[in-house]
């Protein structure tokens, strides 16, 4: 292959740069509890950037600041983190999707969507232990170095390919390079899964909790009709694969522990249930929300049945597809008959009765809403609707 003189110089310069970037690193340090990066290393730079990001995060309006919930989550993560607990700062973020993440400097994020979807402490411990696995194995640093290496090599490859008059090859090379980066992150996820699972079991949690959680996540994934991640360019392994892996790992545990701490989990999270359900519905991803809420309802204690039945009705009403209004009406009626009924049931039950032409019962339900929710922000609107039915006070 013949390159023009200028092309050859560019190639040599690019290769030199790539090699220089590969050579400027320290070996991966032993990540002992309480240890920090050596000054001047690339890891030190990453920590510095993360610390700045963390200061921003601390001011975020999305941060859940309730001390009791923060204490509970921290206590849970520290059970499996052991001596690494002192290296961690846990931030609960009020975001309704299922997610958690771990920064290399010990900043752990947990989204409230994960707290809504978990059934017990063992399940959330499974998620948090996985994130701890990333921290222990220094995945962020390894990933950063892999991206740097791949980008440098890709630059060289592209210069060579373009210089050889093969731009399509350069593009294909880029795609292959990015696919390799994503594969690397998927491998890290698998490693974090293993580390997290081992920590979970060694601290007495039921390994089946991870299986239950992933099975639920897979069912939720299956409801997505669009924005499905590509298998090649996905940062995480497919949920089906993770479910299979955790199922096999759980089955292999001899005399597995059975601790799940369901009651403690409910006590810590129950005060937020309605808020998290409101946020879940505001996502307007109703196929997923209907599944999430119906499964929560199936697993819920009797005291939560009325609330979850009501929100399941709300998901149907808001989606408003064929048959949804009728389903919502039935669920409101059912919720109204249960103990611990939320006051908003009377408003929705009233409107459903009105739509069915049962005006006297509708008036009664709407009036009950107004009598009970004396500070309701939609009071004037409901009063107007009640007037139309001839029943305003």
């Amino acid at each position, binding site marked *: 292959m013949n390159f023009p003189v200028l092309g050859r110089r560019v190639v040599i310069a690019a290769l030199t740069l790539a090699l220089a970037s590969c050579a400027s690193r320290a070996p991966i340090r032993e990540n002992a509890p309480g240890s920090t990066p050596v000054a001047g290393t690339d890891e030190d730079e990453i920590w510095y950037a993360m610390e700045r990001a963390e200061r921003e995060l601390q001011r975020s*309006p999305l941060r859940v600041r309730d001390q009791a919930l923060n204490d509970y989550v921290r206590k849970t993560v520290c059970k499996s983190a052991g001596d690494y607990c002192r290296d961690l700062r846990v931030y609960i973020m009020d975001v309704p999707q299922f997610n958690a993440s771990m920064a290399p400097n010990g900043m752990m994020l947990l989204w409230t969507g994960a707290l809504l979807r978990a059934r017990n402490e063992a399940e959330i411990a499974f998620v948090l232990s996985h994130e701890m696995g990333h921290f222990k194995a220094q995945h962020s640093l390894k990933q950063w170095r892999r991206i740097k290496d791949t980008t440098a090599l890709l630059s060289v490859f592209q210069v060579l390919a373009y210089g050889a008059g093969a731009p399509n090859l350069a593009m294909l090379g880029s795609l292959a390079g990015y696919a390799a980066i994503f594969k690397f992150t998927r491998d890290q996820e698998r490693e974090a899964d293993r580390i997290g699972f081992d920590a979970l079991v060694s601290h007495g949690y039921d390994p089946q909790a991870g299986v239950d959680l992933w099975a639920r996540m897979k069912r939720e994934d299956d409801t997505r*009709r669009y924005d499905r991640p590509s298998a090649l360019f996905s940062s995480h392994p497919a949920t089906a694969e993770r479910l299979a892996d955790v199922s096999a790992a759980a089955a292999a545990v001899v005399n597995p522990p059975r601790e799940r701490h369901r009651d403690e989990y409910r006590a810590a999270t129950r005060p937020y249930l309605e808020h998290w359900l409101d946020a879940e519905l*505001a996502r307007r991803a*109703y196929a997923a929300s209907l599944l999430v809420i119906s499964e929560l309802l199936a697993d819920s204690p009797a005291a939560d049945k009325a609330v979850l039945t009501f929100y399941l009705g709300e998901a149907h009403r808001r989606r408003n597809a064929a048959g949804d209004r009728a389903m919502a009406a039935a669920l409101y009626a059912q919720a109204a008959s249960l103990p611990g009924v939320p006051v908003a049931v009377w408003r929705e039950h009233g409107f459903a009765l009105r739509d069915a032409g049962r005006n006297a019962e509708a008036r009664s339900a709407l009036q009950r809403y107004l009598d009970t929710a004396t500070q309701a*922000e939609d009071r004037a*609107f409901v009063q107007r609707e009640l007037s139309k039915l001839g029943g305003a006070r």
Partner: protein
Amino acid sequence: MKLRIWLGVCLLVLLAGCATRGGPLVLPGPNPAGSRMTIDSEMEWTRISTQRFQLWTIDGELLNRLYLVPGVREREYIFLGARQTRRRPDGPFFQPGMRADEVRDLIIDGLLASGAINIQASNLRPVDFGGREGLRFEMTMANEEGLKYQGMAAAFEHDRQLALAIFLAPSEYYYPRDAAKVSRMLDTLRWK
């Protein structure tokens, strides 16, 4: 040469399209707010007009903005630009005949999707806009940096479309300064 003339004509047509919805300065008094929607202003604003909406501001878009949409169409995203499809059935899409609280939820969920945080709506109430039944409510929220905002919204249905007005300003100084005047303005929204 011919190509240059055509390009010039196209540019003029495009500029004319931008200019037909009222000048850039809004003066106190009755003002067009796009299509057949009108609103009586109590103060001067700067106006940006497009075919589908107007954006009014006094001190700059981040300090006060009045967003006016004369018609959100059936199955259209509440802040325009997308439509409900069979493949993407969910989202804050307008449907004629929605209850006032459902329209409020569309606006709130649309703002959430636009990056607003911790939105709380209050005082949902029925309002008559020149014989058309509509709604108004107030709201508080924060942006991603944590700056607190307050707002108010008005909406009413006409011709199976939704007329919409939303005012947002920071809670510090700007919202309290203009809220009473803007509130009176929103009550003057009309469809001629």
